[in-house]
């Protein structure tokens, strides 16, 4: 059986970037299944160099992140011989790209600071008279109360203080600018701290500007989990999967949304917005029950698997396309492929709009369906847990003996998750051979995911070897698709 599997595999990966790793990856895969926690979605072993989802990251506490930022700031201070305030602003304004900052600064220090809104060629304002008028508050103020930042626009201390207060209340800190008209010179933090009187606002300033720094740093991200204080530090800013140890949130490092491979950040955002706008229509059109294609008995879907068997007439069909299930295992499996109307360009606007809606509903339906299946598979997991507990109590094997079932559900969920996120990718793909290849791999993945789901739901009567074999096939399909289409 397994020999057959690998032959199928090499067929799939023909012309792909998979290359020569056939054997070694298989061994490693097998290790994965036994090494991880059963309740863990992530079965990856992060040392795999050929894993398309491989990503190095570590969780930091606020204090560690602070230390890390300070170290980066200090390095720049010593190299450029500038003060920490300026170094911070430079890093913030230039994507924390130290090399680029040092290069540019050493080429032309003054020019670079001007370009960064931290210096100006303007001559400082000359204060006239014994009690010059501050142009913001229009009061006469002692000359020694006047202050300015790099641009030399003079305002009184009270006005600066008020300016900072209003800006901080609006959540602006690192971006605070001079008060003069059309002046974009930035106010460095030492100047703010020198003037800002209220202790509460000083705290706010320091907190908000720390947040600004983290958000501007390409290799750091606040964990988007609810009430989670962890900051994730990654080696590079890529659209890869992060799983927070503290709160369990799984998300994309680059955009912070739910992890979405193989779809990229921009496309998934577009898709989610579209779904939000159109979901009412889609909900209305896609009903929650379907009729058996043969005996027309009404069937409600209560498991994740899309391979349906009618309880009444026992015919096997696909929940998505209502087609005969027997065709789904073969080359002709086309359920996941949307067939575009070839004459669409010649049709009227009305027909085109209908066609667009039809196309969207096709992809949305599959997207939604897999999302629902994922939820239902959580129930399957709970059922397995209850049954396993019973078995262990009745001395039918030990807890460890049944662990493979949990591995199977975890892997199933992981594969289905990726499958779900292939639909937005396909929706926005241009027609052509690449889309054909994608849809081919997608359909292969889909068919193996459904096979796995079918076997997991019937785990007690399915042979363990057969189940593990199916797990291997499904994961291979997933990996193959990601290797070819996950662009990061």
């Amino acid at each position, binding site marked *: 059986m397994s020999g057959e599997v690998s032959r199928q595999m090499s067929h799939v990966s023909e012309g792909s970037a998979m290359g020569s790793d056939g054997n070694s990856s298989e061994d490693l895969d097998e290790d994965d299944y036994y090494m991880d926690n059963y309740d863990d979605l992530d079965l990856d072993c992060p040392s795999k160099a050929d894993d398309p989802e491989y990503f190095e990251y570590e969780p930091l506490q606020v204090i560690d992140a602070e230390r890390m930022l300070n170290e980066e700031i200090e390095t720049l201070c010593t190299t450029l011989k500038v003060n920490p305030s300026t170094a911070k602003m430079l890093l913030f304004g230039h994507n924390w790209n130290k090399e680029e900052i040092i290069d540019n600064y050493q080429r032309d220090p003054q020019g670079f600071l001007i370009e960064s809104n931290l210096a100006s060629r303007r001559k400082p304002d000359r204060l006239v008279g014994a009690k010059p008028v501050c142009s*913001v508050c*229009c009061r006469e103020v002692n000359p020694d109360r006047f202050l300015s930042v790099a641009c030399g*626009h003079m*305002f009184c201390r009270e006005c600066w203080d008020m300016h900072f207060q209003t800006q901080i209340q609006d959540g602006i800190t690192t971006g605070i600018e001079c008060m003069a008209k059309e002046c974009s010179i930035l106010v460095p933090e030492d100047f703010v701290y020198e003037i800002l009187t209220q202790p509460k606002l000083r705290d706010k300033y320091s907190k908000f500007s720390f947040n600004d720094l983290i958000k501007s740093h390409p290799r750091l991200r606040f964990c988007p989990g609810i009430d989670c204080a962890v900051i994730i530090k990654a080696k590079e800013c890529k659209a890869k999967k992060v799983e927070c140890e503290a709160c369990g949130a799984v998300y994309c490092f680059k955009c912070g949304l739910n992890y979405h491979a193989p779809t990229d950040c921009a496309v998934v955002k577009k898709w989610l917005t579209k779904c939000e706008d159109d979901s009412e229509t889609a909900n209305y059109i896609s009903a929650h029950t379907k009729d058996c294609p043969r005996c027309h008995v009404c069937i409600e879907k209560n498991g994740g698997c899309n391979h349906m068997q009618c309880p009444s007439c026992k015919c096997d069909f696909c929940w998505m396309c209502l087609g005969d299930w027997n065709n789904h295992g073969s080359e002709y499996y086309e359920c996941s492929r949307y067939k575009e109307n070839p004459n669409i360009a010649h049709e009227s606007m009305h027909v085109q709009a209908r066609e667009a809606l039809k196309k969207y509903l096709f992809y949305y339906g599959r997207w939604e369906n897999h999302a629902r299946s994922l939820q239902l598979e959580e129930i399957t997991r709970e059922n397995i847990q209850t049954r396993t507990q019973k078995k262990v109590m009745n001395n039918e094997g030990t807890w460890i003996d049944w662990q493979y079932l949990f591995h199977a559900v975890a892997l199933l969920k992981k594969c289905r998750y990726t499958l779900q996120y292939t639909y937005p990718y396909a929706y926005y793909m241009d027609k052509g051979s690449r889309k054909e290849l994608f849809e081919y791999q997608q359909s292969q993945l889909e068919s193996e995911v459904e096979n796995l789901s079918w076997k997991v739901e019937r785990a007690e009567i399915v042979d363990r070897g057969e189940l593990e074999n199916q797990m291997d096939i499904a994961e291979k399909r997933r990996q193959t698709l990601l290797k070819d289409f996950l662009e990061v």
Partner: protein
Amino acid sequence: MANIAEQRIKREFKEVVRSDEVAACNIKVELVNDTVTELRGEIGGPPDTAYEGGKFKLEINIPETYPFNPPQVKFVTKIWHPNISSVTGAICLDILKDQWAAAMTLRTVLLSLQALLAAAEPDDPQDAVVAQQYKDNNDIFQRTARHWTTAYAQGPTKDKELEDKIGNMKSMGFDEHKARVALSTKDWDVTKAAEYLIGQ
């Protein structure tokens, strides 16, 4: 804080009301009551634009945190312009939002608004319908804007054809302002405008 705001407004008041400025730039500010938080402004439509000859009234509210926060300004006079709502008079202008600087004054605001009338920014619209017309059908936009200036801001130019169309709609029983809005929105197609009003 309010103290600063009051002091500033009083001083600015002198600045804007100075007669040579009024003559040169065609701008005005006046008090509505004895507080400085509510003001009324007026700007003249800039020459060689569809707003020429019109007088546009503005409602100006001074926040307590002025001048550290911008004044809130909106058009009271109805106006057909991509960056000003034809319904509410709300204005989309950067210096009234994040580009405000404490050293700016009411005079700068009014002059900027005048400049906005002379040079619309249809890619940053407040009124999507107007902005679309500005981009797709600029001739009709210019005519419509001129007509609104005459109808609401005492502008000098009469456009008989457009007025006849409004008269036509009025005789069908529609309210004059609603008819003008509908006709303006539907590029002065009487049938479409009537359908639009009935469909509402």
